[in-house]
């Protein structure tokens, strides 16, 4: 299990290969990558603020919960903070399990919790000014399925 909250970019390919190489005896690996969308050219940048002390412990707790619930053989979360540009990868999750259903469920669970329970806040810097991204009701509702 590895967790990194960082301002630097990460290499999805290198992370995926390293994760897969260490995933045995898993038969299934799922990755999710979140990317900054440019919203039809309106967005110039995204700034992600976080709560350094709390971020690691909140995410580690989610990962431990997912690992136990779906018997993961491994899990990875990388989440960036700071200034990102359209097309940049914001974060990734990877899960490894014996079978596909568990790997998928754990990745979706981690994403739902990262969205609404990890202390990150996104600000969109657009051509008409800057605005904090509002939390979506659908993201909060997504937690009820777990």
């Amino acid at each position, binding site marked *: 299990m590895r967790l990194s909250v960082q301002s630097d970019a990460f290499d999805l390919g290198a992370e995926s290969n390293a994760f897969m190489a260490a995933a045995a005896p898993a038969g299934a690996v799922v990755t999710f990558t979140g990317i900054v969308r440019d919203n039809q050219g309106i967005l110039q940048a995204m700034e992600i603020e976080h709560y350094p*002390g709390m971020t690691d412990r909140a995410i580690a707790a989610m990962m431990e919960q997912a690992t136990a619930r779906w018997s993961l053989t491994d899990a990875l979360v990388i989440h960036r903070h700071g200034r990102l540009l359209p097309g940049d990868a*914001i*974060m990734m999750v990877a899960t490894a399990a014996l079978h596909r259903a568990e790997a998928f469920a754990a990745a979706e669970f981690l994403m739902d919790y*990262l*969205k609404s*329970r990890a202390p990150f*806040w996104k*600000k969109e810097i657009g051509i008409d000014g800057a605005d904090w991204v*509002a939390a979506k009701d659908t993201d909060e509702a997504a937690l009820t399925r777990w």
Partner: protein
Amino acid sequence: MIDILYFAWLRERIGVPRERVQTEALTVRDLIGELVARGQGYDLAFADMTSLRVALDQELSEFDAPLAGVREVAFFPPMTGG
């Protein structure tokens, strides 16, 4: 003495990312009352409690939670990670 941290638009409205305050508040809700009484952006920052989240010593908590023994209180809007 207790450390109070603000994030995202709460930080912007209040104007500082953190401060150390002397408080007699027994609960989070009492503490918010003391802060709002200062005016100066605090009233605006805490105007909508439905958009407010609180963490005590880096764990998500409730407004009615007691502050006894707590060293760090953080206020922020709903999280938008992922």
